[in-house]
């Protein structure tokens, strides 16, 4: 069953155009439909994905250490990092919101970076992973990744709505940029990766298995 299903295009001499999805013969160097350059596998994407992931990982540090919002309340200025913000929510007995924010702002980016790292490592270093788990993880990351923008969305809303000068004012702090970049880079990193490389890896494993 597995053998039947695991026939890959390249084995059949077919290559899918990345741009328009046209199935071409591998002999073609350009897509018959859109004329884009055809590549059987984009090995460079692995490199790019790694680079972006590393960037995101680096940026994750300031995003968590630096304050993400500057709140001026009655003239008193408080800076909140992501984590202190969650703690504040917990202290304010808003645990469900804290959970959401924690998930969106800390759990998801971290998981995404770690997950991506695992995938990329799996590709790069031929690590042996259960194909099923990888697939589950992959879908999870894909689905949940978009929610990590929740924090920024909240910040941008707050900044727009809470603007009462010295009395009450919220402003994004440097960490907001870093955090946004973390999300951006992880998204892009996941996007640029030619996932076929992963499937190749998995097929090989299956074969080996």
């Amino acid at each position, binding site marked *: 069953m597995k053998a039947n299903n695991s026939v890959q295009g390249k084995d059949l001499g077919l290559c899918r155009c990345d741009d328009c999805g046209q199935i071409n013969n591998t002999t073609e160097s350009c897509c018959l439909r859109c004329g884009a350059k055809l590549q059987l596998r984009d090995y460079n994407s692995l490199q790019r994905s790694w680079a*972006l992931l590393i*960037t995101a990982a680096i940026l994750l540090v300031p995003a968590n250490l630096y304050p993400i919002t500057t709140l001026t309340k009655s003239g008193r200025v408080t800076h909140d990092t992501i984590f202190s913000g969650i703690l504040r929510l917990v202290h304010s007995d808003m645990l469900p919101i804290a959970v959401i924010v924690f998930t969106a702002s800390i759990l998801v980016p971290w998981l995404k970076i770690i997950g991506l790292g695992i995938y990329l490592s799996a590709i790069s270093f031929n690590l042996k992973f259960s194909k099923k788990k990888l697939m589950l993880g992959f879908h999870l990351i894909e689905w949940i990744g978009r929610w990590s923008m929740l924090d920024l969305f909240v910040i941008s809303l707050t900044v727009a709505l809470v603007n009462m000068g010295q009395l009450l004012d919220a402003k994004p702090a440097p960490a907001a940029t870093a955090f946004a970049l973390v999300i951006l880079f992880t998204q892009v990193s996941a996007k640029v990766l030619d996932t076929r490389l992963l499937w190749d890896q998995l097929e090989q494993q299956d074969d080996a298995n």
Partner: protein
Amino acid sequence: MTQIEQPKVVRKKLFSPVWLLPIVALALGAWLGVKSIRESGIDVRIHFPSATGIDVGKTLVRYQGLNVGKVVDVSIDDELKGVNVDLLMDYRAEPLLRANSKFWLVTPKASITGVEGLDALFSGNYIGLLPGDGDFRDHFEAEQEAPPVLPGSDGLVIELSAEKLGSLDVGSPVFYRQIPVGEVVSYRLDPQHKVLLKAYIEKQYATLVRKDSHFWNVSGVQIDASLSGIKVNTASLASLIAGGINFSSPVSSPAAEANQGYKLYASQQEANGGVRFVLTAKDADGIKRGTDVIYRGVTIGEVENVVAESQSVSIHTRLDAPYAELLGSDAKFWREGADISLNGFKHAGRLVSGDVIQFLPGNGSPLAQYPLANTAPRLEHETPIMLTLTAAENPGISSGADIRYRQVSIGKIAQVRLADDFSAVLYQAEIFPEFKALLTAGSDFIAEAPLDIKASLDGVEVKSGDLTTLTKGVVSLRHSLNKKALNTAKPIALFASASKADAFYQQGHKIKWTLYSDDAASVTTGSPVYYKKMQVGTVTDVDWQATADRFAVTLAIDSTFAPLLKNNIVFWQNPALAVDASLTGVKLQMAPLNGVLKGSIALAKLDGHKVDSQRLYHSESLARSQAQAISLLLPADSSLRTGAAIRYQGTQIGEVTQVVLNADLKHLDAKAYLYGKYAAPFLKRDSQYQLQQAQVTLKGVEHPEALLTGAFIAATPGNASDNSTQFTVPRLTDDYMAKDALHLLLSRNTLGSVKNGTGIFFRGIQIGQIIDYRLKDNGDEVLLNASIAARYRHLLNQSSRFYDLSGIKVDLGLFSGAQIETGSLETILAGGIGVVTELNNQQAAPLNASQTLPVYGKADADWLQWRPQLSE
């Protein structure tokens, strides 16, 4: 396909450019990391006595409004005496942390000078920081409160020296044109025991302070309370409580230097400088520190100090700078107080503020000392005309009284004094020169009555002068049209009133005439004298002459009527209301109203014979008839009234003018006049006067006119050769009451219709009457006391029979028929007693008095036939 291109061998790049991204991110992160490590701040520990108001993580350290650190920990110190507050200072704050830097807790503080640390109200308390010098240090002892000098002040600090601090305090504002430009930052006593204040002027206002700036205290409230209102002068509410300093700067002066010393004046006036000098006066009554110096109503200076010298007082005075040049060598100063008079309050404010010093500028260079006069100086070009007025008695004019012409003040009384010989009061009057033309010969000075009430039947006219008249009195000038100027050298009479003045002038033009009257004739001084109802003069005096017991009434008759007085004239009291009531009618005559009130005298010409022009008659008729006075003595029960007529045969020949009860209570004294033309025969000594009263009887009315006018006196002329003015009027009785009447006692069974006055008739003629009746002691009969007129007594003797005449006698007989017998109508109603006499007097003895005779019920028929020859 045919043409196969030579494959281009591309050397695979080892690193994709995308790797730049992580490198950049790394670099960025590293930079941030380094930066944050570098800027991690400096740990500072400050020891506070208490941690009140300090929150870990929230309390910030601020310097010039900038957050330079925050509290990261609070812990109790080792000795448990305070708290250690750990601060994490911004790395850039390192220069602030020096050995002499000061830290203190700023808490919101609301005081009258302002709300301090208002930001702390919102942002919470924070720790203030004042950098100091010295080496770096990271542990400090907190200050109790903010250090006086403003942090980071690069404004101007000046020193002010004042006599006293007043209500100034640290934080008291410094104003320039009421804008706060700085504040007092400290004060202390200097070695000279003056108060040295340090004031800080903010940088942007520092240029306002010049070398020659004047600073003055605007502390508290300046209340200028006067009757014109209350002026409250405060610089600001803050300075009201906390005091304040104001300053002004001349424009041309160079800018002030830092720490320059200035004198702090107590007030703006003082600060503004001016010229100072000394006024000398005998006393400083009403003058005190702060007394204003006034010129044309403008306060141009004030008294700064009053010092008592051995002989006088020195009043240290200052003229404000703008007016300093008014002060010349011949400047004049005098004091002036509130002028309170009933015509108004003048300068009423001075009641509160005290007197002021009036100032008159002078020329020349200012002196250091001036005399202070008590009264306004007399200006050369305004020399008033001096007059001396004289009056026998002061009519209430005091010094300062106005002299007015048509109620316009033309001068004043400067002085009131007694003449040297105390014979008169002398007034020094000053007439303003512009009114010189009014002072003409014949002008009068009249003291005005404060209240002039003229009450007449026309109404009451109350004329009151203004209220000054009440207090000081007012002299009014009555201008005469004479062209000649008044001789001001001689004393001029001051009349107490206009009428007095008139009187004075008219005395010369009036004819004096004296009348004599038995009574004051109800005239008083001022009573008018009328001729044909026109006033020709007045009564000037009514004087009682003790010797003659009469009144001398002096008249002043206007000279225009002099020819009148040359005639035969008579005077009489003009009655207010003359009622000539007679049966022909009542005639009312009213005197002129003026005369009604005051009493008046009328005069009239009489032609012909010489008349008594010196007598004041009681009435016109008396006067016109040149009546002759007589006096009559009447019995006390005579109902004679004043005005009763004296008649002869029905013609009035005189009248009674006065009836008084004599002291013996038994007689009336009546004063009466006999009209001149009839008087002579009735003045004979044996003339008779009898009182006649109206008698209403059933027989008729006797003297009916007496019903209206009352009793009158009937006169009978005499024949004697000598005259008299004293007559006695006999009792008005009939003969029956006369002393020589015959008194008889009649007895009767019952009183019947007999009563007092019941007549006793002889042949129908009344000869007497019953004057009394009583029950006999044993009660068996009634005794009637009868009186028979003397001239009829011969008609009665022992043979006389008395019988009852009362009522109607009706004899009814069957055969004789009815016989009705009546007496006169009078006896029918009033009853009566008849009497007959049988024998003549030779045959019968006369009746004795107190002999009791019976009264028979009826006369026998033969009694009525008796006809004796009765003779005296």
